[in-house]
């Protein structure tokens, strides 16, 4: 954490010793992004059939996790509401959307992409306020990739015959997304679904509904035919109603492995097609011949980007024993320059934890980590008094048998283990029910490729980490789920591929 230093430095004499003189530290003044660009209404209804309508269920509040300020009242969609939304989606599919050519579907998606670019700043600010992530990330990472995702899939809508999965859509897709990348997860779900000719009912996470609701407005601005996109806000019950609705042809879920498991059980025996993108406990593997300064950046990016609320986070650092001390020293020094604070401050690197519930989980597992015997370290951090905050934390002396090496913490907490040989690194990396991603840091090309071959993970990042692109398929092995989002492969989930359907 950046702290002010009163260091001494000054003229060197010929032996390199420093004579003292005062040196003021470089303290960054507050650089807040203005909130005035967003217009948050006091309450929101559901977006069904192209309009905002009142839900018939109860309501709940969404708050700003950095301050606990109440932002708005959100409808909790009831089973009846979900049914209305699915009906609207079905009508839109049968009467309008399935009758449009791919080129026309493409144009709607281009419109949406364009408007997202035009309203980019507004979306970024809203995302940071509702989710807690730094404005630097929502502005520079989330929103640009959201727009790019819509552009990319718009371009597939009229080229499906070249993609290799046929050209027949599935019908109505029920989609449930998490709170860690609210608008990006929405883009990953809606863009390919619509491009392939499906209509959707999407439920955003209960702690982060606002950008989805603004997206609904964008659909209206784009003159998207009513019912093609429907947004039903709510929590677990709403999600359950949606995925078990008999008239939903396709279920797409991103979230915890636990819930994914329930969904997979619930659709058993139905003909619903399912894709799941679940949890992870990725190994970030650093060899002794890695470009160490860049590897440290990759480690930091891997677990502290987005407050560690990332399914593919590099939450286990596997460092070759011969460079472990050097890497830890560099890592701690680098962690000391991370700025934790107001998400709307443009200089903030680490924002707020998304909810009290998540903060409690992170604290619990961190306490367990200490109790299990690992050594815990965080840079000195002044945390705000309101809101949900957790300092970037690293545990050393962790072994595979520790819970913090096996369970997904979903917070800015890194567990450090060591290895001796490439084979051992692979063994440890694969020794988990998860299989979403992995990182490899070495300057040796053949070793990168060998490791990539051996690692049981859907995404392997070599000499980089947490890189996403609409053209690049993303998804997991094993209990990290099945199906891919992004790229040509991302179309498969939304087309009738099997001959028996």
């Amino acid at each position, binding site marked *: 954490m950046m702290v002010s230093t009163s260091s001494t430095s000054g003229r060197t004499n010929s032996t390199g010793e420093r004579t003292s003189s005062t040196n003021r530290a470089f303290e960054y003044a507050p650089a807040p992004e203005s909130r005035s660009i967003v217009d948050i209404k006091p309450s929101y209804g559901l977006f069904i059939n192209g309009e905002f309508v009142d839900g018939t269920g109860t309501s709940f509040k969404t708050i700003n996790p950095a301050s606990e300020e109440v932002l708005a009242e959100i409808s909790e969609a009831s089973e009846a509401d979900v049914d209305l939304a699915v009906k609207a989606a079905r009508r839109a599919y049968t009467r309008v959307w399935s009758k449009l050519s791919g080129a026309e579907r493409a144009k709607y998606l281009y419109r949406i992409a364009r408007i997202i670019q035009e309203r980019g700043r507004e979306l970024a600010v809203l995302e940071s306020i509702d989710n807690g992530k730094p404005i630097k990330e929502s502005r520079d990472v989330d929103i640009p990739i959201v727009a790019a995702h819509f552009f990319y899939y718009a*371009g597939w809508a009229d080229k499906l015959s070249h993609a290799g999965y046929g050209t027949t859509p599935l019908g109505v897709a029920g989609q449930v997304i998490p709170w860690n990348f609210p608008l990006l997860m929405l883009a990953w779900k809606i863009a390919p679904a619509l491009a392939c000719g499906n209509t959707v009912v999407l439920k955003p996470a209960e702690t982060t509904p606002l950008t989805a609701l603004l997206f609904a407005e964008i659909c209206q601005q784009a003159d998207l035919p009513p019912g093609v996109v429907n947004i039903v806000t709510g929590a677990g019950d709403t999600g359950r109603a949606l995925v078990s609705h008999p008239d939903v042809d396709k279920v797409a879920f991103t979230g915890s492995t636990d819930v994914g498991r329930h969904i997979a059980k619930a659709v058993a025996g139905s003909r619903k097609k399912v894709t799941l993108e679940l949890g992870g406990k990725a190994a970030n593997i650093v060899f002794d011949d890695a470009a160490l300064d860049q590897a440290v950046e990759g480690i930091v990016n891997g677990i502290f980007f987005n407050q560690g609320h990332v399914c593919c986070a590099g939450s286990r650092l596997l460092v070759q024993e011969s460079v472990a001390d050097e890497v830890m020293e560099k890592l701690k020094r680098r962690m000391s320059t991370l700025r934790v604070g107001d998400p709307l401050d443009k200089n903030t690197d680490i924002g707020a934890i998304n909810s009290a519930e998540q903060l409690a989980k992170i604290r619990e597992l961190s306490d367990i980590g200490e109790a299990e015997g690992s050594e815990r370290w965080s840079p000195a951090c002044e945390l705000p008094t309101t809101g949900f905050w957790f300092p970037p934390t690293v545990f050393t002396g962790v072994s595979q048998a520790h819970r913090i090496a096996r369970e997904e913490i979903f917070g800015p907490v890194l567990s450090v283990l060591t290895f001796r040989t490439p084979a051992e690194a692979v063994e440890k990396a694969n020794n988990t029910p998860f299989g979403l991603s992995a990182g490899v840091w070495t300057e040796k090309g053949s070793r990168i490729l060998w490791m990539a071959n051996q690692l049981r993970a859907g995404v392997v990042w070599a000499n980089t980490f947490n890189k996403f692109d609409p053209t690049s398929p993303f998804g997991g092995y094993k209990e990290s789920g099945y199906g891919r989002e992004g790229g040509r492969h991302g179309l498969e989930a939304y087309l009738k591929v099997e001959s028996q359907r």
Partner: protein
Amino acid sequence: MTRLDVRKTYKLYIGGEFPRSESGRSYIVNDAKGNLMANAAQASRKDARDAVTAARRAFPGWSSKTAYNRAQVVYRIAEVLEGRRDQFVAELRAAEGVTEAKARTYVDAAIDRLVWYAGWADKIGQVVGNANPVAGPYFNLSTPEPSGVVAVVAPRGPLLGLISVVAPLIVTGNTVVVIASEAFPLTAITLGEVMATSDLPGGVVNVLTGSVAEIAPWLASHMDVNGLDLTGVADSDLATSLEAAGAENLKRILRPPLAPIDWLEEPDLSRMTTFLETKTVWHPIGL
């Protein structure tokens, strides 16, 4: 009293600018009724040479942009063209004498064609590239790369054919010197205006107007041109001699079609793949 209009001078479009022909020549272009529409610049071999220089200079930058970036630029060309829809409809009507409805169909198709090709920029590699399962411990990847500078003889017609031969080249990262349709050159220059205001870097597309028989041989024999699209060459003897001239540096050649093309139909991928090289990279897999 009717207002006198300010008439446009139609020059060439080279290197992002609109120079006159260095030869100082022009030729008369009449509308469908036989009335004078304008004098179009009559390009010389030196203009063609300059256009190739401009295209070559633009190639490294254009081909190294991300596919996403190129797609965004080509979408923008479509946007600007859409904004000028009425102007192009009027130009088509005057040049070809077609009805308003027919002119709209062609202009709309041209815009949509740009949008279709724009979407290919970041997908063609996924369709024609792939990893290869070689029989040994090697990583092996084939990816398409643009050939370089491509000279094009545009098909007869003011707009849709022209866009249909130019768009596939630029989305794949090639740069272009195109000889516009000799009978319908004016819209090509107006299209140059659209490109010049669409974030398209100068030199990526260069438009020459004038005599195909005079200019094409200079492009076909130019040793710094990598590809030759002969779609608009109606005379088969000329086409043969151009292809033979292109053989000197083994240009990639797209021959004239055997039957007239219906430009309203969705194209296949050959206009992109003919001017894409396949690069295959090997790397051992081992500790």
